[in-house]
């Protein structure tokens, strides 16, 4: 990019600076092999979910009673379940449900927690007291119990399960964002914009929240594993996705009856949950090493 471009198009220059910053970040990330493994697993999951209809070999809902409980073979790569449905195809389609729940929960809980925490920490005073006591109330109730009660009240289903998990997932974000905001609100760079006459709204949105983002992102990647497990748990006890949806938790639940003779029916979705959770955790670990303000020296 030539010098005249920079002057003519400052927006592009800022973008170029951010891009250079991102490339530096990516280079440091690639130095962590475990993190790369995690990233590959997560990308694989996204890929499978995106192309599920093309990757699946069978209709995930079509029963084939002749093939009931058949073992892994050339026809049924990972075997077939108690209705003769191909487990591989159900697994592939199930990845969409898993991602859907994770995305729903993250999209609803992280911003809510981030905003509550950032406002609470920046404004302080009675706003802080009120917001944090509400957060404490939600934190005091056991996670799975609150989710169970909520689903029981609203009725089972994927969206309700996601809502129930959200209800219990946002308070840690609020705590985290508040802790960061408390540090940032008295920092000189925030004071400098305050002295320039910036409103509290502008300070929170443009100056405090960007500083909270990195720890929230780290927490988010760790949370994704937990969300997958909770969603599978709700599916397992029949309060999450309903049959015939190929949700991984529900698949384990039906396979449980055959675990001694047809082990693959429960094992395969279990292994899928394990691998995906591990992937998110490895990714989260690597991101924390790079982003955690407490592990990083000041720059």
């Amino acid at each position, binding site marked *: 990019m030539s010098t005249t471009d920079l002057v003519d198009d*400052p927006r592009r220059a800022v973008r170029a600076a951010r891009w250079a910053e991102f490339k530096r970040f990516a280079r440091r990330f690639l130095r962590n092999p475990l993190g790369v493994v995690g990233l590959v697993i997560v990308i694989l999951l996204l890929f499978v979910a995106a192309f599920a209809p093309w990757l699946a070999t069978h209709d995930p809902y079509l029963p084939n009673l002749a093939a009931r409980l058949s073992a892994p073979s050339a026809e049924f790569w990972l075997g077939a379940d108690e209705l003769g449905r191909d487990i591989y195809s159900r697994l592939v389609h199930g990845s969409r449900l898993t991602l859907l729940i994770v995305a729903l929960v993250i999209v609803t809980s992280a911003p809510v927690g981030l905003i509550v925490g950032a406002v609470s920490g920046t404004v302080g005073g009675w706003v802080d007291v009120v917001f944090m006591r509400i957060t404490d109330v939600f934190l005091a109730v056991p996670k799975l119990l609150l989710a169970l009660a909520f689903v029981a009240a609203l009725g089972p289903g994927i969206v309700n399960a996601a809502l129930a998990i959200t209800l219990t997932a946002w308070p840690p974000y609020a705590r985290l964002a508040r802790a960061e905001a408390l540090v940032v609100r008295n920092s*000189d*760079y925030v004071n400098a914009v305050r002295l320039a006459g910036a409103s509290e709204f502008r300070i929170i949105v443009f100056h405090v929240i960007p500083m909270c983002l990195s720890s929230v992102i780290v927490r988010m990647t760790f949370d994704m594993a937990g969300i997958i497990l909770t969603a599978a748990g709700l599916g397992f006890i029949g309060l999450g996705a309903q049959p015939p949806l190929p949700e991984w938790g529900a698949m384990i639940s039906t396979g449980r009856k055959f675990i001694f003779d047809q082990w693959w029916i429960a094992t395969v979705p279990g292994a899928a949950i394990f691998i995906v959770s591990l992937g998110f955790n490895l990714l989260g670990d690597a991101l924390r090493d790079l982003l955690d303000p407490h592990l990083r020296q000041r720059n």
Partner: protein
Amino acid sequence: MLEVHDLSVDFSGKIAVRNTGLTVQSGESFGLVGESGSGKSTILRTIMGLNRSWSGTIRIDGLDIRKTPRKQLARLVQMVFQDPYSSLHPRYVIGQQVAEPMRINGLPNPEKRTAELLEFVGLGGPRFQFRFPHELSGGQRQRVAIARALALSPKLLLLDEPTSALDVSIQAEILNLLNRLRKELGLTFVIVSHDLAVISYMCERLMVMRNAEPVETLTREQLRAREIADDYTRALIAAA
């Protein structure tokens, strides 16, 4: 330009500044000297409205700061912080940070003026404004902080130990830059420092503080001629 009368500041019981008054004329450079903890930085932060519990009166250009809206004050007085490593937002390129005060106050042409301001503090060249703070040295960052403080064209600039976080070789550069800015823009300075050499180089008058109270006010000539009334000031000079 700046009048402070009978100012007292306490931080939940601990008195940081007690019954202090000072007057700074327009165009003057006024120094505050003292050991750490003597309340000199607290005075600056209180003038800027960063402390909430204080008593007394502070007037800037005749305006009572309690009764004047923040945005109006922002056009009159700005501050440069001590540590350039913590006074710039780590997530924004410096051009955005210098432009931010102008955007907040809705001034026209922030981009163009940002380039001019950076040029003015010796960070010319189109590439500088697209750097992140961590790509700059301490001296460069302090120049950015100064450019940001000048963005709203204030008349009064408060400098909280502007050079104490910098290398000795860079300190002189920044001090000379500040002197040039004062001359060219007709600014009024209030400089806080524990370094008497800096104060006597930069300031026409100075006030010595100790334990939250003023000890005495001297002119530069009195300081250089050692016409000093108070023993504490004498000890401070002997130690410098």
